[in-house]
């Protein structure tokens, strides 16, 4: 949203306050509070002047008055502030889930409206769009992937027959890589599969970068076998590693290193992909982090040629849609130092089909 339009709307809103029911109700409540206070004070003065003991009876209305004020604060003011804040964050794009799980809607009708919006929002459609986007980014130019995969197998066979082992190995890695990207797209995969795909990808890239590129995978856990069985959305790591290589290391003079570090807690799986490439400028980092925080799918239909970062936003959105907005991607980057991408996921140790159980909306 254009910030100038937003400011203009805010100004118009401030000028036409009486248009909104909230302000009308607010004015009337304030008027009632002031009037009640005035009446209480008036009665107190009258009773005090009459010097009768009846004025003690005023203690009850005083307490009732204070109680009403307290109720006003706890039951109306605080819930209103919370709802209002969530709505503002929804408008700015920070949250979608918060809006759909509103604790204090203004009225039953409003609740119905939110439910209707939720239905229109149709997350399934958005999911499809992001998956397609991910597939597209992974395959870059998918004219006929099965044909491509079969051709690669053919090349591999010919290379083995001709004794060209390096070509055979590269064709095999390419074939495995494409097969992984195409098959069973809707399911979660194990970390082991995802890391194996990264190793294939690294193997392919090594033909281009040679010794300039190195990769290390660290699993910071005593039970590595169990960690490798944890599940995550397919093609979560590959776009991040690709970004690290092409936007970090490729432009750097000399050798570059990509490190994947896996950590687990009882509820989370934390994967950090670090590179010691050229990093990014602070403005670019801010722009990217803003896009990662704001849930928007504008990038899906974008024809913008500047593709860097789109893959990362796509992965982030897929994670948030699947598991909720408390998960996702964080980026730390410094120019000429490198970039760290921290991916936070829930720790899932389940069989296939778990995806629907973990969805939040």
């Amino acid at each position, binding site marked *: 949203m254009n910030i100038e339009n937003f400011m203009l709307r805010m100004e118009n809103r401030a000028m036409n306050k009486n248009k909104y029911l909230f302000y009308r109700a607010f004015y009337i409540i304030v008027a009632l509070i002031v009037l009640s206070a005035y009446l209480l004070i008036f009665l107190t003065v009258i009773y005090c002047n009459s010097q009768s003991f009846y004025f003690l009876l005023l203690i009850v209305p005083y307490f009732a008055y204070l109680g009403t004020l307290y109720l006003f604060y706890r039951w109306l003011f605080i819930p209103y502030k919370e709802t209002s804040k969530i709505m503002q964050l929804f408008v700015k794009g920070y949250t979608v889930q918060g809006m759909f799980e509103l604790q204090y809607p203004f009225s039953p009708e409003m609740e119905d409206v939110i439910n209707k919006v939720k239905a229109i929002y149709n997350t399934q459609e958005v999911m499809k769009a992001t998956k397609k986007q991910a597939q597209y980014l992974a395959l870059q130019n998918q004219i006929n992937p099965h044909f491509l995969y079969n051709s690669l197998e053919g090349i591999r066979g010919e290379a083995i027959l001709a004794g060209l082992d390096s070509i055979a190995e590269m064709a095999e890695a390419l074939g495995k890589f494409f097969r992984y990207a195409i098959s069973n797209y809707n399911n979660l995969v194990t970390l082991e599969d995802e890391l194996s795909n990264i190793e294939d990808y690294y193997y392919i890239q090594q033909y281009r970068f040679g010794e300039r590129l190195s990769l290390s995978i660290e699993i910071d856990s005593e039970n590595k076998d169990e960690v490798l069985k944890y599940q995550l959305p397919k093609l979560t790591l590959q776009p991040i590693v690709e970004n690290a290589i092409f936007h970090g290391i490729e432009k750097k003079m000399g050798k570059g290193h990509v490190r994947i570090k896996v950590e687990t807690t009882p509820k989370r799986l934390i994967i950090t992909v670090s590179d010691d490439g050229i990093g990014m400028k602070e403005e670019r980092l801010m722009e990217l982090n803003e896009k990662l925080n704001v849930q928007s799918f504008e990038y899906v239909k974008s024809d913008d040629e500047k593709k860097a970062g789109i893959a990362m936003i796509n992965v982030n959105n897929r994670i948030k849609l699947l598991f909720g907005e408390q998960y996702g991607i964080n980026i730390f980057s410094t120019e000429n130092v490198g970039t760290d991408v*921290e991916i936070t996921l829930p720790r899932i140790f389940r069989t296939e089909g778990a995806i629907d159980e973990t969805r939040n909306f």
Partner: protein
Amino acid sequence: MKQEIFRLERVTQIIDGVTVLDNFSMHIFKGEIMGLLCLNDHGKEALIKLFCQNVPIHYGHVYLEENMVNNYEHSSMSYNPVAVIERQSRLVENLTVVDNIFVISKGFKGYLINSNFLNAKLKLLTKDLNISIDGNELVFNLSPFEKCVVEILKAIVAKVKLIVIRDISNFISTADLKKIHKIIRYYTKQGISFLYICNHHEEAFKICDRISIMKNGKVIKVLNKSEFRDEVIASFSLDFSHIDFPLVSRESENGILKFQNISTDNIKNLSFTIQKGECVVFLDMNNTVLTDFIELINGEIKPLSGQIFFKGVNYTKTLKHLKNNICFIQENPIQSMLFKEMSYIDNLCFLANKKLSFWCPMKNIQKSVIQEYEKLIGEDIYASDIKNLTPKSLYNLVYYRVHLYKPDIVILIQPFSDADMYHRHHLVQLIDQLRKKHITVIILAVSISDCLVVANRLMVIEQGRLQKQYSSEKFSYLRANL
């Protein structure tokens, strides 16, 4: 599997329209020492408050042991099991050590206080730490190190999950810092997590498991132990490389200041000579000597034995006349050395007034001071209210006041403590300005900080005695070993 104690997830906090925490993310595991290297102070205070209490945030989530305790939708204002140890002690000074540790604790439910029983409990706590603290001693009488230990023990007894150690090297000595590090390591093995906040990476490298580098309220890099190298940090820090100033006069026997076999209650037979224009650092390893040193120069105490010579003259005998040639800049001077109700120029000329005769018209003097110093200070020199000026401008005011006064010696007490990297860099430049004017600079410090950047010589004082002297050529060796 690692247990997560605290997690701040994309926290943005806005206070009075200023974004103090910007998309801040950090997680701390059980038994981990997480370092926080603050390149500037922006957001530091807000972050510590957020660890302690679930205050409202603009966006993000806060988890304690993987349970959400604070988020942008609702902040309960409840307190988290977190203890903060900083310069300003949170102990009750008029109560004893055991009262502070056990009695003023949330979990204490007894009606009768059995001090013998509490002392025995304290002994149990301190047994493995190899530290002896008298449980019946009033906190008021404890040293900064002992207070720190008591605060850590209090936190352990209160069963906190995280202890925030904030800029500890600013107020405890280098020798005591090593002991504190030992204690921290001991408790990490018991599962307590620490957030170690400091301004110097050398300090953080020695103790932390991971380090988050924070700038302008956001984490810009998380360093793992394998990345604890000076060259990695160099990309984030300012260039502190420095041109050495040659001495303005030839080395003389008496120099500008000479201590000859000086002894006081805490100083033992201290002898040294400082030459004119030199910059000397006194590193007090045990934090016991500095007070006596300051009191000797101020004339508040007299040496039990030995003599002090200032420009070859017996200092103690002619103190009245010579004292005006020595200036002090106290620790955290922008808080303690400025007159908030006076204008910038009045503050600047405050010391210079001492040197002027009664008949000099003040307005003309201020006019010429403005002419001379405007190019160094900038527009701020015209400020009538200094309360709203930046810390950088206030540091300028303190140091240029001395620059204008031009004493023979200026004694700086812990000049770099409590200053972030940008301010420390600026302070180095200000000290250079003093040295350009041939003012001899003496730095009194309990931790090395950035003192070596400006110094010609370092004197290490241990247990009141001058243990070693190092010239600037040997500083690189020292940085690695101190």
